[in-house]
């Protein structure tokens, strides 16, 4: 296992700047997630690390050594793709053994057998070893793909949205398994996703990318509790954060088109701000504000309430089933210590 460092990586495709001066340091044994929307440069970053793409500027280091001039095969990384990466003309066993049979390694067959059965055991695919890959379900295929990475015992795992083609139930269970596996194996893992819940649940640290730039790097708690910009704030959390424009008004902030007054933050704020409130921090039942229930979405485990006040509608999440009815006037409060303030350019204050 290794640590990885990216120094000022830039990459263009034709006219499009895919990565702009990206620097990251990933620690040994860390589960590091690159999160961002489509086209943010996450996959390009991963491919540069694997050597599948050559950066225009900057350097990649594994354990302090530059690997810029190494071919993909010589970098000793394992890549798990979103799809397509199982060889359809081979059995599951041969797929798992394929990297070990490469001319670079020439692992003896009995050692291959040991490592393949080992990995199959861990991923619970022992029963599938003799099957042709075309006969597998989506979840099984992705397990085999991960297995193919594990047998290699590589320095670094690179995973490019490996769960995004699976249905929701499978995604949930594989998420947990993958995290457990990574923690018990202690493998350095870079994981690319556009799904915020995958990033929050699996990562030790997250790097949020947008448009080829790194916006924020931090633990899931950092990203969720202290988003650096409104972009990050909106990217993580479901239902989405309430973002409310507000102006200075008599020693507090008045939220536009509403009767809501929100206290000033500790630091000296500009006259116009955007205030962010997570739905779980809009707490109905008690408090100084009132609004009417515009919509109720019962999800079973929790209920989403749309609370209308003035021209603004705030989303609120309450646990379990709510006893409110459509049109009810309810008092509510905003958790003061959990308010987020952003300036007009979207930067956190």
């Amino acid at each position, binding site marked *: 296992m290794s640590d990885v460092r990216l120094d000022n990586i830039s990459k263009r495709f034709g006219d499009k700047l895919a990565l702009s001066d990206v620097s990251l340091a990933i620690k040994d044994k860390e589960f590091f997630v690159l999160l961002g929307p489509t086209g943010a440069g996450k996959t390009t970053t991963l491919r540069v690390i694997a050597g599948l793409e050559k950066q225009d500027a900057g350097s990649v280091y594994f354990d302090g050594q530059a690997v810029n001039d190494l071919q993909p095969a010589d*970098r000793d990384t394992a890549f798990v*793709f*979103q799809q397509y990466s199982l*060889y359809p003309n081979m059995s599951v066993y041969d797929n798992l053994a394929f990297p070990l049979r490469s001319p670079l390694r020439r692992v003896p067959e009995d050692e291959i057998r040991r490592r393949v059965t080992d990995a199959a055991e861990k991923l619970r695919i022992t029963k599938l070893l003799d099957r042709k890959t075309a006969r597998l379900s989506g979840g099984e*295929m992705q397990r085999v793909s991960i297995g193919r990475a594990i047998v*290699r015992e590589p320095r670094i795992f690179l995973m490019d949205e490996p769960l995004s*083609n699976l249905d929701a139930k499978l995604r949930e269970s594989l998420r947990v398994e993958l995290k457990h596996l990574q923690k018990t194996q202690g493998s350095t893992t870079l994981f690319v996703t556009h799904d915020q819940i995958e990033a929050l649940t699996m990562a030790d640290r997250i790097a949020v990318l947008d448009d080829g730039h790194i916006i924020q790097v931090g633990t899931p708690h950092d990203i969720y509790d202290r988003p650096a910009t409104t972009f990050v704030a909106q990217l993580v959390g479901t239902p989405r954060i309430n973002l409310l424009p507000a102006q200075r008004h008599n020693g507090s902030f008045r939220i536009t088109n509403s009767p809501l007054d929100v206290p000033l933050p500790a630091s000296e704020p500009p006259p116009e701000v955007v205030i962010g409130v997570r739905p779980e921090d809009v707490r109905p039942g008690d408090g100084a504000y009132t609004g009417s229930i515009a919509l109720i979405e019962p999800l079973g485990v929790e209920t989403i309430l749309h609370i209308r006040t003035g021209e603004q509608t705030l989303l609120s999440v309450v646990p379990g089933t709510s006893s409110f009815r459509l049109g009810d006037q309810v008092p509510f409060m905003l958790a003061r210590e959990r308010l987020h303030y952003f300036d007009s350019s979207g930067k956190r204050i």
Partner: protein
Amino acid sequence: MTAAPLAPVNYSTAVDKVGAGPRIRTAVRAIIAIILTIIILIPVVWMGMTAFKSHPDAVSVPPVVFFQPSLESFVSLLTQRRQLTNDERAEFAARTDLTWADQLMLQRGQVIIGESNFRAQLINSIIIAGISTVFSVGFAVLAAYAFSRFHIPGKDDLLFFILSQRMLPAVVVTIPIFLMYKELGLHDTHFGLILLYTSFNLSFAVWLLKGFIDEIPREYEEAALVDGYTRLQAFRKIVLPQATTGIAATTVFSLIFSWNEYAFALMLTSERARTAPPSIPLVLGVGTIEWATIAAGSLAFLIPVVIVTFVLRKHLLRGVTFGAIRKG
């Protein structure tokens, strides 16, 4: 459809499109398909029948449908014969050392004096079509792979240039090529025709194969690259097995072209390297047209292509090797 409850079973959208009374529709479709097949096959069947007719049956008007099968046409296809005078005829009739083929020809008043060129020409066809097909598919698969996977400067222009080779009717350049071949000593050589057919087929083969290779996700090879294989090894172990559908299709198309090509074969060969197509019409007999012999030649000519296509038919059905791909 009895998969575990959570396993996605993707039949709903497919079957939804089947409307009311699917059985009647299936039956109607089957009948139409059968009728079309019959219409398409009639000339071929007629040719096959004619090949086994005797000369009088073959030219009789109205045509005979039920006849005594005879190998006469095949014998005349493979031999050279001389017309006998009446005296000779009686003399030959009395001989007892005649083979069945001799006797067959004797009934038409002819004697076999040697082998015809047809066998040699068929062998020429096999050599020339076979080798040029291997060459064109072999080069094309490499070129197509490169066009599909690498950043090549001026890629689109190059592809257009390759395609533009097919824009001029080939026959237009027969005379220049004839002159060049004369000058270069390629006239009437196997190599000459192989070279020509390979270059004709290449442009088409590159385009066809590029389409197939484009559809093989590059993640497959990239996975192999990361796993410790070289580009060439990844190509051989991963891309080629998955491109069999495309390679089979391209092979059949190239083979059919080289096999059937007539004009250049006629112009550029005379003796040694002559292929079958230009010679079949030349078996016209003395005085009359030997329809049965022409049919026999055409039948013999048809068989190799049918065999190759039959062998490759499994690969020609698309999608067989794409089982592991789940889109979206």
